[in-house]
């Protein structure tokens, strides 16, 4: 796969990941008004778990480098989001909910990491 086509593929899968995130996020928030900010955490957890799996598959030779880029950098990268999480933390800080902000930040650090480890271990 030429690097140009690969880049387009990564970008397209990233777009798909973003649409998936939008769909899940909006659907959950429409059903559960108090879902802030756990939808982002849930989506990031899923994306991190998948990324861990893809990384393991690539490490064990079950997946080529191109495929790994497409799936991990492309889809999982688009599915997950750091900017939304940071802005949720900032919003909590601005409304002086410092305890919630700290707790949320801690879970944002820990949960995706645990999910990556779990995804990696499953393969």
């Amino acid at each position, binding site marked *: 796969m030429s690097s140009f086509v690969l880049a387009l593929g990564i970008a397209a899968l*990233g777009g798909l990941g973003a649409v998936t995130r939008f769909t899940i996020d909006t659907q959950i928030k429409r059903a559960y008004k*108090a879902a802030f900010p756990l939808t982002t955490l849930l989506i990031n957890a899923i994306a991190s778990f998948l990324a861990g799996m893809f990384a393991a598959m690539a490490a064990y030779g079950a997946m080529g480098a191109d495929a790994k880029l497409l799936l991990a950098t492309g889809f999982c990268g688009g599915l997950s989001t750091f900017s939304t999480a940071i802005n949720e933390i900032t919003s909590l800080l601005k*409304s002086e909910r410092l305890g919630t902000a700290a707790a949320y930040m801690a879970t944002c650090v820990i949960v995706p990491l645990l999910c990556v480890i779990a995804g990696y271990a499953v393969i």
Partner: protein
Amino acid sequence: MADSEALHKDSAAYAPADAAQPAADDHAVPAPAPAYNPLTDWGVYAAVFCGGFVGTLLRYALSVALPQNGSAGGVLYWGTFTANMLAAFVYAAVAAYLGAASWMGARRKERTNRALGMGLCGGLSTMSTFALEGFTQLRVAQDAADAASQSVGGTSIVVTTTGAGPTIPANVAFVIYVALTYVVGVLLAYAGSAVGASLGAKAAAGHSGPDSASSVADAPSEPVSAGVSMDVGNAADSDTSESPDASASSDASESEVK
């Protein structure tokens, strides 16, 4: 805060018809407008896809162009770090700008917010790659610790072979990478929302004259409405348009919705 609250006051008219709402809120909901369900608005899907496409492309380009050796003697994965920091800033700026954009219709604002915020910034930023990189740093550190403990007279300083002598051990790099990412990210989010709010206020003044600018400037002094947790959530994300709490706020800005 008021930036995104203003955004949601505009969106109050677009409460979904099928959402379960407690009876107590009914009196505060304005006269029924067509229920806006973003999940059936194909334009929003297209907008989010395009934003995600561009954002992911940019992130990939950054990861190729900038050093990504956070576990091999470098400290940061500069490509991922730059992309995440940029997205944190832009997301906050866009949300603040749109919050002050009183000349825009609610639907256009919603679409722009999702395209740029969820789409572009969501694609540009990544939590999964960041977590994967942290995991790699921890594994490299663990392997180095195992190797050091097995060698005769193992030292506690890990020397990585980049040819220039002792470099930063991967476990230290992990802590620095994670700490910097979050601290700088939050700082940039504060900066972004300040920049966005001021640009938005100026643009609003340009569109509608001095009266608009002063009412936008007054917005920050409005108290956060009763449903604090809901507004905080919506203020951060600006993604949901159906919060019933927005309708309970003062309607000073709603009268400006075109």
